[in-house]
């Protein structure tokens, strides 16, 4: 489980979908990296990810980790965004029966979970069918 400091570091990605685009080959790294995995270059520009895409796979989790037990069962998926980036997130506001490869989804800012009644609330992105 993230500590507040570890969580804070990820906020540009989780709150604003910030990614790094390689200035040399154009590869988009999400999360951002210091070294391009495709060409090895080290200079990036900050960009915002596309906010919609389509599912390449999905599942419905029935046995959840502790922090997610209250949400179980819940759907998760990997989507190809319209800019070619691949992303993993929960899929919400959907009927499980409607899930299929190729389903169009958009990214929305949502609560991920909270650490007990007085704990930190963690936010981030989730997929919602378009």
């Amino acid at each position, binding site marked *: 489980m993230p500590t507040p400091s570890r969580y804070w570091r990820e906020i540009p990605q989780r709150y604003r979908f910030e990614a790094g685009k390689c200035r040399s080959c154009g590869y988009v790294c999400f999360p951002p990296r210091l070294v391009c995995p495709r060409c090895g270059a080290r200079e990036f520009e900050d960009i915002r990810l596309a906010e919609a895409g389509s599912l390449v*796979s*999905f*599942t419905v*989790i*029935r046995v959840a980790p502790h922090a997610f037990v209250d949400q179980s069962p819940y759907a998760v998926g990997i989507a190809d965004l319209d800019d070619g980036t691949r992303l993993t997130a929960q899929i919400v506001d959907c009927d499980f029966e409607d899930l299929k490869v190729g389903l169009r989804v958009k990214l929305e800012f949502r609560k991920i979970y909270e650490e007990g009644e007085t704990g930190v609330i963690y936010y981030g992105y989730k997929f919602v069918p378009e």
Partner: protein
Amino acid sequence: MRDVAVIGVGMTKWGELWEKSLRTNFVETALLAIEDAGVDRIDSMIVGCMSSGIFTGQEHLASLLADYLGKTPVPAARVESACASGGLALRQGFIEVASGMSDIVLVGGIEKMTDVNGHEATFALGTAADQEYEGYHGLTFPALYAMMAVAHMHQHGTTREQLAMVAVKNHANGSKNPLAQYPFKISVDDVLCSVLVADPLRILDCSPITDGAAAVILCPADMARSMKKPAVRIIGTGQATDTIALSSRKDLTWMESTHVAAGKALEMAGLAVKDIDLFEVHDCFTIAEIMITEALGIAGKGRGGRAVEEGLTAVDGKFPVNPSGGLKAKGHPVGATGVAQAVEVVKQLRGEAADRQVKNARRGLTQNMGGTGGSSVIHIFEAD
């Protein structure tokens, strides 16, 4: 490099071993391996363990285990590569003997997983995935493999029944292994009616939570011959990495790290996959075995489901896969699995596998994998 042989193996019954501590379980198997090898000393030991810190609150394992084995002050090291920790320990032991640094090396694997509750075990195993971009969103290991299964079914037409057939085959094999955690047979219907974990994977598609240990003794092949022990040589080793996050892969249905590691090991051995008589592979989930058979070249790309359905990977098939019962029936104490695969192959090549013996087995291959394939370690063994 010197030729390296395995001259001793040790393994005890796996399962929920509440009565045994981590250190006791390890020492038992290490003593069996030392006795089997008939050696009066060890020069060094390597221990594979994924997460004793979370499972039992105990780090600094290498020294602890050397102490309880009564072998201080021998050098000892612990290596970690998630569920491939045992395979990596074997590779480090191989390198140590091959290089001439040490003569007699004990390689052990250990994991004690049932002292924590299910949520804590799920969390500990989840640390082998990308914690900040997979675990954060509530992903579990079964969920990641379930997404590989969905993609495989979508791209290659693999069926739900074919997934089940992997578990049925491995339980049939495991029913002949007295050390297995679940040595009983199951049917396709049993799998299809078992509890859903992450659609489409059900509980009988998943390897269990297990306590267990395994150990082998390595030495130079020349020394093994002079000792007149039934020795098995390690003739190939290969290791490769891939992205930890599943979403960073181009193809969710392909195990590149296994493919690359196997290529290196086969090249070192001067062999092709058709020259191998049996395989012990990392079937942590049924879909994993299907994808591994493709990555190894046993089945064509996308044809792993058909391979199991057609009996290609049965004990009496062309490519026997997991005669021990695999992780599925034998159990999966994560850090011990890679070493136990070596124990099974050595027993098979010595002709000591009793009812599950693969006929005329001269060469065997082990494939041990971490996470969703972020690491893979392959070894090839040959009867000397």
